[in-house]
């Protein structure tokens, strides 16, 4: 049957026009907000790169900070001790956090009763939200008081930060591993622990790497725990984890507030190095995450 043409114009009425204007304003505002956030990112990263670029020479990466009295020619100076210190601290932190995080994920995903797993996951999520400065005070009170600062104590504090992230990332990937694979392994007579370690876990490697790199990226930039555990460091390169070592975040923190513009430039350079590390870690994490999820989803 033929439809009758509507007598009221659906599109050009006053009310409709107002609604469309409101919609247009809101959509515009949303776009502006997103552009604003991207602009802030560009401004910050742009400042870091443009102001720090001049500091990134060979001396910067190979020399240690040189004392400058303010008079006479300036000696060559760099942040080699801070770079090595950060690598040591993060390396030990990873060694501490990876096994705990992976085992936690295994327990919560494979072995624990559902209710308990929920409570324990909640505990880790709450732990994740504790401010880093409070963690710093905890580690200070727990292991530093009376015994002195040390790089491994800084690693301990950072490991507390990293474990929830690694556990969560591993858990997510473990959950994606098809049940059929576990069943097949058990049906072939393998023990549960064999199944978990040799069949399920290798499939989750992508998630583990994702979590580890993201956790590393976050821990590399944390300064607050370092204030309490590895702040009294010397200007020379040190490999001893039982002593406080220099670190890139601490270098930036102390250099930023000083009056010397050359130190400022070095701080920007160090910030550029830090952001570079984080950027590369994020890209690796994303690539691994995409790859493992794609592979696991493809297997189903």
């Amino acid at each position: 049957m033929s439809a009758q043409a509507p007598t009221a114009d659906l599109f050009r009425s006053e009310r409709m026009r107002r609604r469309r204007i409101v919609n247009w304003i809101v959509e515009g505002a949303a776009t502006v907000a997103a552009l604003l956030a991207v602009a802030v990112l560009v401004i910050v990263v742009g400042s870091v790169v443009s102001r720090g670029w001049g500091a990134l020479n060979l001396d910067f990466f190979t020399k240690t900070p040189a004392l400058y009295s303010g008079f006479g020619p300036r000696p060559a100076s760099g942040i080699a001790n801070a770079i090595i210190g950060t690598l040591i601290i993060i390396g030990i932190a990873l060694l501490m956090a990876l096994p705990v995080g992976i085992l936690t994920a295994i327990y919560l995903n494979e072995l624990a009763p559902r209710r308990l797993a929920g409570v324990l996951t909640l505990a880790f999520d709450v732990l994740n939200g504790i401010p880093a400065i409070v963690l710093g005070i905890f580690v200070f009170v727990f292991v530093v008081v009376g015994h002195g600062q040390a790089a491994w104590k800084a690693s301990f504090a950072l490991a507390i930060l990293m474990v929830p992230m690694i556990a969560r990332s591993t858990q997510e990937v473990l959950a994606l591993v098809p049940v059929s694979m576990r069943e097949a392994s058990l049906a072939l007579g393998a023990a549960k622990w064999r199944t978990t370690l040799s069949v399920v876990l290798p499939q989750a490697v992508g998630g583990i790497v994702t979590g580890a790199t993201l956790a590393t990226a976050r821990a590399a930039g944390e300064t607050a725990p370092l204030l309490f555990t590895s702040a009294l460091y010397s200007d020379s390169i040190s490999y001893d984890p039982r002593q406080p070592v220099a670190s890139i975040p601490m270098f930036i923190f102390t250099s930023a507030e000083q009056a010397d513009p050359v130190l400022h430039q070095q701080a920007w350079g160090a910030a550029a190095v830090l952001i570079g590390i984080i950027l590369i870690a994020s890209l690796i994490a994303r690539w691994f995450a995409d790859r493992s999820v794609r592979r696991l989803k493809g297997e189903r």
Partner: protein
Amino acid sequence: MSVAQERATGPAALQRRGRFRPGDAILYVVACAAALTGVVLLALITREVLTEAWPAMQKFGLGFLTTQAWGDHHNTLFGAKSFIYGTVVTSFGALLIATPISLAIALFLSELAPRWIRRVVAPLIELLAAIPSVVLGLWGILVLGPFVTGTLGPGLHGTLGWLPIFSTEPTVGSNMFAAILILTVMIIPIVSSICRELFASVPQELKDGALALGATRWEVVRGVVFPYARAGIAAALILGLGRAVGEAIAVTQVIGSRVAINSSLFEQGDTLASRIAGQYQGADTALQIASLVYLAVILLVFSLIANLAAQLIVRRVAGRHQIR
């Protein structure tokens, strides 16, 4: 894996079946121990921090929270009032600015943007979250500070100076306003990424239904998406607030370290976390250290409550709407 399957293959079950594998027990114990570290650490942190703060808690009691002093009377009187004020003003100020922006970004990324823009912009916003706080503080000192004293501050003071919050002249780059701006930059990625996932999880049928009834996209968001995601948005805001409250490094670099309560945002101040960060290294008396840890106790209590609340909301919402 269903509970029944777990029960059928857990160590108890294997024991029943008479095929006890020591490897299973070892893995179970080790993994269980690892999983318990979360709870153990929470308890340990609470206990150690409370113990260290105890001398100050005993001496000042709850009056600590209403005393505005730090090191007065020859290092014998300490109080957290001005820092609680500073924390509240900077965190809520940052949340106030960040909320509409974050929601707008989340909307943009989940509803409005074409796929290729989404793929570019989303990682950029995640990268904003990854910028370390010390780098943001460096930027705050050397770039934002001069901008606030040179351009933004005089502009706000000139036009809106009748408002108490802009009533004094911004002469120093280190002030509460700079801290609020830095915290806003930190909160936005967190809140917007959580909200984006929330908005994406709204069932398409509900949105389609509204569209079919002739709603504009904004009306769909206002009428369907927001009410649906209401609890989740609250959780995201709480998490963002928690992040702002706990931020020590970037804030201590730009806030000016002053024990004072002023209505103007262009004055200096201090927050709980930033006072701890600024003073801890040089604290030379036991009472001063205990007072600083007392500040940490206040932070810890707030963060535990806020995080717990946010996580419980998230779990309830997830359970109801079957996310994850």
